[in-house]
């Protein structure tokens, strides 16, 4: 694979930010017709490298070559003109405009007096969409498309030029399995046309499906390249985190107490229907399913953010009405939400204030908030959860993902809840901190909390749960015990293949 001329080659790239050496002497190349996966934990320098590749950042040292011609890429548009295109993780589309306008954004074909040449625009963009086997036309408003189709538009952008290298940044983050298959077909098609592809992802299974070579970054430096055909997950993980990681599943049965929360026939419009389950103290109940299966919505209903259309919720055997998060908190239910930064944390506030936010009203001395009482709580949970922070004054936005998540968990634990719902506990958290969070969840159950864990990652669900709820399209398909569950049966259940329900 190393013979011939690389489509894109980096040599000795150094990129520093004030106080941080984000990339240290990184070299990397991608051959025409090759998928080269780039792996690394969060903060390893993947996104910085990607931004250097796409002309968003300028390297402090080192050179970039396109087909062995040394180039300087001053901006993303400049990079695109030279044949290097980045497909963003967060879609950067103008949702009010049509697909065609988005595809040629900034480069609309024009007639005299700067008038847009609509005929040419629609013809050209239509051809590209056709090539991608898209089901929608160039005139469709992008805001009306599904996430997967928006990504198609983003990819179509890359094809307006004679792309030599295309960089995919976590392209499957919000795709369903069916959509993933389509994406992989497109990647293979690009590959067949001799385009070099840089594929950045956290997901091992995808990387092994699609890539030819795997390069690993750690702490801003290059750690090696492996041939996908002859390596395995263990070897890659070892390279990524610098040690081996055991991916075990939870088999020891928990010592369970009484039913803490039970749900009977709960429905919420089209979101989910007829859901019944119970969680005992000391138990971790996992919810597994595809994105959009209704898992998060169930959690939001239990937390008072949604009003159920039918069914009831019982706490300690009594039917309760939960109309707001305030009600839920009073009844001892707490929610660690799916997206930490948008829903869980006030990023501009310090660690202490974030941790005490729901209960600060009870921590007063006269009319004023008592700093002492707050710091006592913060210190207690910092030690308990081993949160790494310079101090309580540190802005929460400056912490790593794992430590941010622990602040959110600590926030609820300090309220002494009975039921802890954790939605995607390790999303965007690096591999090392993941296992720490998993151990923490197991430990919380042991301490007598009733824990509900929602996750889209099968190893995670298998690792932490005592029982696993499989969901498909808003329906509860089956509840597995950790002894009986197999990966195959779980996958079948969440794909709607297995319809015999066992409660």
């Amino acid at each position, binding site marked *: 694979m190393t013979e011939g001329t690389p489509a894109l080659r980096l040599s000795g790239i150094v990129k520093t930010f004030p106080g941080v050496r984000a990339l240290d002497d990184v070299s990397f190349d991608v051959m025409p017709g090759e998928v080269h996966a780039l792996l690394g934990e969060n903060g390893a320098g993947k996104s910085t490298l990607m931004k250097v590749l796409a002309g968003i950042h300028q390297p402090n040292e080192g050179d970039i070559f396109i087909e062995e011609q040394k180039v300087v890429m001053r901006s993303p548009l400049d990079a695109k003109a030279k044949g290097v295109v980045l497909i963003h993780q967060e879609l950067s589309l103008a949702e009010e405009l049509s697909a065609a306008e988005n595809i040629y954004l900034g480069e609309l074909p024009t007639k005299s007096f700067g008038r847009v040449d609509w005929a040419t625009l629609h013809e050209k963009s239509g051809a590209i969409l056709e090539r991608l086997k898209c089901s929608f036309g160039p005139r469709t408003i992008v805001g009306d498309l599904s996430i997967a189709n928006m990504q198609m538009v983003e990819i179509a952008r890359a094809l307006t030029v004679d792309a030599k290298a295309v960089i995919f940044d976590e392209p499957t983050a919000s795709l369903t399995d069916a959509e993933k298959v389509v994406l992989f077909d497109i990647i293979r098609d690009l590959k067949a046309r001799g385009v070099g592809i840089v594929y950045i992802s956290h997901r091992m299974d995808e990387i092994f499906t699609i890539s030819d070579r795997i390069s690993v970054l750690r702490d801003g430096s290059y750690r090696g390249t492996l041939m996908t055909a002859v390596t395995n997950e263990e070897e890659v993980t070892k390279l990524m985190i610098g040690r081996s990681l055991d991916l075990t599943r939870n088999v020891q049965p928990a010592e369970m107490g009484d039913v803490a929360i039970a749900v009977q026939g709960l429905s919420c419009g089209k979101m989910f229907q007829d859901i019944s389950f119970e969680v005992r103290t000391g138990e971790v109940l996992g919810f597994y399913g595809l994105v959009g299966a209704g898992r998060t919505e169930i959690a939001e209903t239990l937390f008072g953010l949604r009003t159920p259309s039918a069914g009831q919720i019982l706490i300690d055997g009594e039917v309760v009405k939960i109309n707001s998060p305030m009600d839920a908190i009073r009844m001892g239910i707490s929610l660690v939400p799916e997206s930490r930064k948008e829903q869980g944390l006030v*990023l501009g*506030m310090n660690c202490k*204030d974030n941790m005490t936010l729901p209960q600060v009203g009870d921590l007063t001395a006269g009319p004023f908030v008592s700093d002492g009482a707050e710091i006592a709580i913060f210190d207690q949970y910092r030690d308990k959860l081993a949160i790494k922070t310079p101090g309580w004054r540190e802005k929460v936005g400056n912490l790593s993902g794992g430590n941010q998540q622990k602040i959110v968990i600590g926030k609820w634990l300090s309220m002494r809840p009975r039921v802890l719902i954790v939605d995607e506990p390790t999303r965007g958290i690096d591999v090392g901190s993941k296992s720490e969070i998993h151990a923490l969840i197991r430990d919380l159950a042991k301490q007598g909390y009733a824990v509900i864990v929602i996750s889209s990652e099968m190893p995670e669900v298998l690792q932490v749960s005592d029982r696993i709820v499989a969901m498909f399209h808003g329906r509860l398909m089956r509840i597995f015990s950790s002894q009986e569950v197999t990966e195959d049966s779980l996958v079948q259940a969440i794909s709607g293949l297995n319809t015999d329900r066992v409660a």
Partner: protein
Amino acid sequence: MQSEQTVRFLKKGAIWAFIVLELVFFSVAGHFLSLSEGAFMDLDNMLLLLKQSAPIGIIALGMTVIMINGNIDLSVGAIFAFSAVILLDSMTWAVFAGLGDWVIPVSWGLALLTGTILGAINGLIVWKTGVDAFIVTLGAMLGYRGLVFMYNGEQPTSELNWTLVDFAEAQFLGLHTATWFLLGCTLVLWLLMTRTVHGRNAYAIGDNREAAVNAGIRVGPHMMKNFMLIGFLSALSAVVFYSESGSVNPNDGSLYELWAITAVVLGGTKLAGGSGSVISTLGGVIAIQLLRKGLGYIGSDTETVNLVIGLILIAVLYLDRQLNRKGKEELRI
């Protein structure tokens, strides 16, 4: 870490450094240019400056709370005018004829109640309809101003009560009554925002509303309280100002909302919410008043003053952006 602290210090201290700069500039420039005898930094002149800062200052303090909370209130000038009308007119109402000077606290109370109610209406609409505060208070700005004109047509509302004027012109420990009100409000609001649960929640909601909801904070009622607070403060500002002047024109208080916002922004509070400081707003208010007075002192006319303040506002926000950008490579537009 070190540089981050430096930046934080620069941002907090910037408005006060700017005030010192203004003082030095006008003292020196005044030495050569001014036609008047006295020095710019004359004590009486400075005391007067504080007094003159009070009306917009008191409103700006409330605006700080509103803006930290992630909202904005454009109706403050109209609330100011309507409260003033109620203040002066109620003193002549027949029902209160027998009260003598005791009509003063009654009228004050009525004016403050008026402001609070108008603010509550804004807050209630924002809470219950979910319409953006900008739009709601834009409507309220027009609507409340309409009320002022409906009340007395184009005519000014006048009532001069000499006991009241004496009180308003009094000086205690050298500071005027209005200055005491300004400083008192600053202290109370500073305590509110930095030491109380309400203040903590205001920052949390302004920074990340969704996270605040998820922490069980009731956002709607919280915002309504803040709108009542700024309504009250707008009325208080009217009470302080018109106790002395005794006559309100139906167009009084126009553009006060913009001056208040200017002072808040100069003080470093973000339009987007979540950060800001009441003390820095006081700095912003003083800086604007210094600029007005100083430019007048060296012989500029009013039009120039507005031009200069506008330019400085943009320059300050540019500097703020530069400071915030440091260390992060943001995309150039």
